[in-house]
């Protein structure tokens, strides 16, 4: 009788133990939260993208017209090329500027130059300021009247007022520069953290082996930093693709559609034209681009990491 009891207790304990050792129990809250705030909204967006829903009528039908319209009507390919220009130059220059600023700060700290903390703080401020405010600040600087700061400076060298926000190409360039300024800080923080962890003995060894500064940078520092650079690249790419607030405040997508990036187009479709079907179809395209880019980055750069 006792033996039987012991066996039953052992069996129950084993069962309880297997539950305890399983990570599933701990993951349930996380899965529930993710399903609620991530999976369900994505499902709803994909579902709505196959409808003709709008913000005025409650009724809608299922259709693929939103996608057909999106790919065939004027504006879609311009939006894609505008977004590509904006994302490519923003990401490249945020990465380059962030890298060099952090390198300068590290070198400055090494040589105990005063003011490195001020530089670090000043760059960080750009990251802390909300996008809408950045849009307004840059709008003031790009102002095309006499009160515009850049045009005022340019007037001293006889370059006259430049249409920073009303020329189709110049406005896209202006928005991209503002975004580079905004995003450089984030890259700087990540790369600065990475540079702090560089093993000094490896760099010292390279120096003893006769590697010059450029060789040390390209053959030693960059390979060690590559995991951080990869994460940085993924984050700022997705972030730039999703940029909405700053562009909205700076140009509103204009003139015409010259600065209408994908996320702004989603906003315009849903909240200005009330076209939920088209807006969500554009959102699905944006989601697809983000996922594809992340996979490409992981495949190409992640392989090197291994």
């Amino acid at each position, binding site marked *: 009788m006792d033996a039987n009891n012991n066996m039953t207790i052992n069996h129950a304990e084993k069962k309880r133990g297997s539950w305890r050792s399983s990570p599933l129990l701990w993951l349930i809250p996380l899965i529930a939260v993710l399903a609620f705030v991530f999976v369900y909204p994505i499902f709803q967006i994909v579902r709505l993208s196959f409808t003709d829903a709008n913000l005025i009528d409650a009724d809608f039908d299922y259709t693929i017209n939103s996608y057909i319209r999106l790919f065939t009507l004027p504006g879609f390919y311009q939006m894609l090329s505008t977004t590509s220009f904006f994302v490519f130059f923003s990401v490249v220059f945020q990465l380059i500027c962030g890298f060099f600023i952090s390198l300068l700060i590290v070198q400055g700290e090494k040589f105990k130059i005063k003011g490195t903390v001020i530089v670090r703080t000043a760059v960080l401020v750009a990251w802390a300021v909300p996008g809408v405010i950045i849009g307004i600040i840059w709008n003031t600087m790009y102002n095309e009247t006499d009160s515009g700061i850049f045009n005022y400076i340019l007037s001293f060298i006889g370059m006259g007022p430049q249409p920073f926000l009303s020329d189709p190409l110049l406005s896209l360039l202006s928005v991209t520069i503002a975004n580079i300024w905004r995003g450089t800080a984030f890259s700087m923080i990540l790369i600065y953290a990475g540079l702090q962890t560089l093993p000094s003995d490896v760099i010292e060894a390279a120096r003893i082996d006769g590697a010059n500064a450029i060789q040390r940078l390209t053959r030693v520092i960059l390979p060690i930093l590559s995991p951080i650079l990869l994460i940085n690249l993924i984050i700022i790419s997705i972030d730039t693709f999703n940029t909405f607030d700053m562009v909205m405040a700076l140009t509103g997508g204009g*003139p015409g559609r010259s600065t209408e990036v994908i996320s702004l187009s989603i906003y315009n479709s849903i909240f200005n034209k009330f076209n939920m079907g088209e807006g969500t179809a554009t959102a699905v395209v944006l989601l697809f681009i983000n996922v594809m880019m992340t996979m490409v980055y992981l495949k190409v750069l992640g392989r090197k990491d291994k």
Partner: protein
Amino acid sequence: MNKYIWAAIICSLLLMITGCGGGDSGGEEIELTWSTTSGYSPEAPTQAASEHIAGKVREFEEAYPNVELVTEIQNSNIDEAMARILEQADSGRAPDLAAIDSYLLDRYKDYLQPLDDLMKEKGMEEEDFFPFAQDVMKGEDGKIYGLYMGTDTRVMYYNTEVIDSPPETWDELIETANDIQAEGYEGIILPGGRGEGASVTTLWPLFWGQGGELVDEEGNPTFGEGENREKMLEVLETMQQAVEEGALPQRMSSYGAEGDLNEEIAGGNAAMFLGGSFQESFLKETLGDDFENWDIAPLPQMEGGEPASTSGGWTWGIFTEDQEKQKAAFDLITDTFITGEAMDALDQLPALSTLYESEDYDGTEFTEKFRESLETEANVRPSATSYRVITVEMQTALSDVIAGNKTPEEALDDAWEVANSN
């Protein structure tokens, strides 16, 4: 013992039921739900408006002690708020009374109650309202379904020290703009970017002035076909010509709202601009003594075009079928919002023409001219659901033309292709 307890409970319940259902209906407690914008509520942003509305609401509550007023503040996104009320009305959950954007009133008329009898009781006549307001308020059956309160109109503001006689056509306007630039002023400034201001102030008045129609009777877009296309094309070509001749600065392609011009006006370099009646107070506040040099004139038109402007504003609609509530609601809106005192406090133009003679309406320097504009030139945007796409696409087209990004033909064709495919 239990029997006595049960008897007491049943008696109390009966008393409660009879108490609730009985009594004189006049003294019965009723709940009146009014859905309003924050600007037309005791929480209005200006002190004058807020004090006026709060005071009138207090008076209403004293006059109707049996009415509990439930205030619902609408979403600040007007279109979203309007869509919600329509959805509520469609499912029988509409508020008893609601503020409705005037140009959208048509969409609600199937759910609203006629106000003719209530107007008669108050001594209000349909003809007392401006013609454009009557068109908005009246349903297909000839009955009145909404009460227009405040409105606005679009005009040309100009500095009389710089411009002797205001231009009447766009050809004259381009010439005048070039002349004043020689004196160091800006040419003509107007909203020409992506925003509703560009549609209502710059595009539609020129298009309507030529007799153009944005939509047909079914609400389908018509602006890009037949004669309408020619008229719209002429509007865009005129804008292109104004930019090419240096009369219209390219940067106007990034100004979507009338308010976007304010910075330039305050800078003192503007001698004329196209704007809304609501900018008068800004002009007065900003220019100080120089304001007395400013005047207004009708919007310049195309050669041979008729005077035309765009008016907006808000209406009130009553959804409840309960007659007692209807009467209370009607009293609330007429006493609070459709008086001269209210229009002064809200800094708006009355849509009720008789209010202009009212002793309690002070108005402003330009009130008489605004009144003339409302009487003779005012048009209201179509309430068709296709309007949103039309306006967004045409704002983009205008902005593209002023920025030199597209030719008028390309811009119009692209806008038409999108609007017509919806």
